[in-house]
């Protein structure tokens, strides 16, 4: 007993002794920079890939101030953390915010108003369909980094073998799905994502639905408007006829397994899926291609699934430098090049002038196809007029909670939209926001 106890306590004691030493070395990074009379250091909080590369590239070329990157988890926890940082006054100078979360973050008073400084940049460098995502209530809250228009991913080898063509209209798409099923009873030409309410929103957006809006001084919520219900009925039908496979999302294990086995030969996803697809199913290199997504009348139309902007949180200590950095990483060709320098990111810059930076993406997985020309056309065809609302989170959870039931035929997608409408209006009211009926 005795020697054993000694050993353990010796171990513990040494751990405790070495503790202040290690703690001290953890603090030097930030501490030294503040103490030395050198250039200012601003903090930059972001969870997207290549944030480190961009920071390093900026620091190398800029001497008047430096940037320190804070790597943090993404998802709902990110926004919890941002809210508590603002509450305690420990905010970073620059923070990433996704478009669908921006109204929520703004309505909680967590951001600095950038109308004076970033407003002109947003008006000059960005098209209206993305301006509307960062301009809320007549004020500008951030500068867009990337956009995520939906496109149609398909297995070119399968399509060529069975003489199939990507669909132009939704009616064509139904036929295409039937043909795919006929050609290979195990294969499906599309998926229904049961854990991703963003897809339902994007399809409604493309179909002419507008979930949130403002009327005078009030919010307007119309999640179950006619266009959205029409879109819902269409997908509901595909699901019940088993023309599409049901998976949690396009980043789900089961989904990738199905792709690997050739059970999913085409699907709708945003441009960022390209990078994920090529690194997850490297075996299918050269077999995939991208086409515009189907639309109601055959004219090009798309919608966005994701995308993010950079903002300045309320109480930031270096707002001017923060804005300079944000401009560099969103609108400067050098900054955009840094985001894409790995050659594996299929991100689409929100500023159309920066499209050439996407040339870094290696397209051998898509047999050399110039996928970004398809993606940028899709971006152009995103209808303007869509904005997100402060309760997008509640809307999303209400929908995703019921998507599984839609897949099993227990619920109708149109009814799910109606319950999301009710839940969202209730949430607006509980936050004290006025809602126009």
């Amino acid at each position, binding site marked *: 007993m005795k020697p*054993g*106890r000694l050993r*353990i306590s010796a*171990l*513990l004691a040494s*751990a*405790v002794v*070495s*503790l202040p030493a*290690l*703690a001290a070395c*953890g*603090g030097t*990074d*930030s501490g030294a920079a503040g103490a030395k009379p050198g250039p200012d250091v601003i*903090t930059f*909080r972001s*969870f*997207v*890939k290549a944030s*480190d590369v961009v920071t390093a590239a900026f620091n190398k070329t800029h001497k008047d101030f430096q940037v320190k990157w*804070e*790597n*943090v*988890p*993404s*998802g709902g*926890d990110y926004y*919890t*953390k941002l809210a*508590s*940082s603002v*509450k*305690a*006054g*420990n905010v*970073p100078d620059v923070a990433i915010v996704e478009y669908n979360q921006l109204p929520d973050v703004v309505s909680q008073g967590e951001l600095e108003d950038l109308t004076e400084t970033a407003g002109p940049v947003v008006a000059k460098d960005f098209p209206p369909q993305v301006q509307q995502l960062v301009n809320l209530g007549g004020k500008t809250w951030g500068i867009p980094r990337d956009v995520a228009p939906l496109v149609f991913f398909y297995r070119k080898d399968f399509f060529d073998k069975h003489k199939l063509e990507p669909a132009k209209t939704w009616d064509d798409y139904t036929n295409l799905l039937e043909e795919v099923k006929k050609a290979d009873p195990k294969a499906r030409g599309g998926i229904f994502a049961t854990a991703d309410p963003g897809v339902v929103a994007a399809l409604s957006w493309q179909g002419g639905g507008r979930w949130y809006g403002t009327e005078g001084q009030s919010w307007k919520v119309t999640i179950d408007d006619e266009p959205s219900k029409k879109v819902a009925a269409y997908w509901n039908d595909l699901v019940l006829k088993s023309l599409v496979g049901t998976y949690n999302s396009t*980043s789900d*294990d089961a989904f*990738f*397994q199905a*792709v*690997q*086995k050739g059970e999913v030969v085409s699907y709708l996803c945003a441009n*960022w*899926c*390209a*990078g*994920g*697809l090529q*690194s*997850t*199913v*490297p*075996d299918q290199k050269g077999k995939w291609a991208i086409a515009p997504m189907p639309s109601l009348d055959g004219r090009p139309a798309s919608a966005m699934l994701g995308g993010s902007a950079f903002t300045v949180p309320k109480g930031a200590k270096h707002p001017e430098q923060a804005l300079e950095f944000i401009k560099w990483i969103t609108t400067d060709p050098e900054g955009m090049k840094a985001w894409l320098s790995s050659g*594996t*990111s*299929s*991100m689409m810059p929100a500023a159309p002038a920066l499209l050439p930076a996407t040339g870094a993406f290696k397209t051998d997985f898509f047999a050399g196809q110039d996928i970004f020309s398809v993606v940028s056309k899709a971006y152009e065809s995103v209808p303007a007029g869509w904005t997100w609302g402060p309760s997008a989170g509640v809307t999303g959870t209400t929908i995703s909670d019921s998507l599984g039931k839609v897949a099993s035929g227990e619920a109708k997608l149109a009814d799910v939209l109606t319950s999301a409408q009710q839940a969202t209006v209730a949430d607006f009211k509980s936050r004290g926001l006025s809602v126009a009926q």
Partner: protein
Amino acid sequence: MTLTATSAPAVRASTPHRKPGARLMPRLLSRTAVNGVLALAMLYTVMPLLWLLMAATKNMRDLFGTNGFTFGRTFDLGPNLAHLFAADDGIYLRWLGNTALYAVGGAFIATTLCVAAGYAFDKLSFPLKEKIFGLILLGVLVPASAMALPIYLLASKAGIVNTFWGVFLPSLVFPFGVYLARVFSAAYVPAEVIEATRVDGAGDLRTFVSIGLPMLRTAFVTIFLFQFTGIWNSFFLPLVMLTDQHLYPLNLGLYTWQTTSLNQGHPEDYLLAITGSLVAVVPLVIAFVVLQRYWKAGMTTGAVK
């Protein structure tokens, strides 16, 4: 899987009222039921671990292309580990070190405080003793994650947000350990022994260090293990407290990898998170294997008395 499949019909087949072997049947029945439940519990704990073990030996292609509970077409544990320890300039080792420091250092000091406090509550008398103890019990009732935000705001006032101390100091407080230590002290340290030391002229501190503490060794290990796993698994507090990834504990680092892995189409990090999770389990297993004999020895002490 096969275990559940075979045990379930066995239970059903033996339920109808049948007479032969009346004495044997109930015994057999209860044994089947108990084993069935145990088998289920085992599957529940072992299956995820097995998946983790298998997934960590696969490359990206096999991870999504082969059955989760078998090996992949190639054995890639080596490259995965190499990738893990090289990623972001070896940040994983830093996280491992941080966690060890938070968990071992924090649990050691917390346990020392708990045992001393529990002993004091049991053996000494001082004003407002039971009232103060009630306050500590109140602390047991409030879940740690509910305390994270208030602690964060306090830490912010104290200026220790995003420092080592922001996570370390709160982990020194463990009210349940104080309660446990009091119970242990009442059971393991006879009042007669304490009286004897007083007669010999030892002060309270001397009595505690030389007599009380050695007798409470089991309590020490038990509370240590509780708080060690508690800190090892604590997530929400480091999440709000830390923004410098060099201070992250393992689970927060792994979570960062996991949440960003499928973001913007970079599933490579997914494999990092998987291999990292497997390596993270190892120290916990070692801690339990090494310390459990103290624990077991303690549980049976006094059983005969």
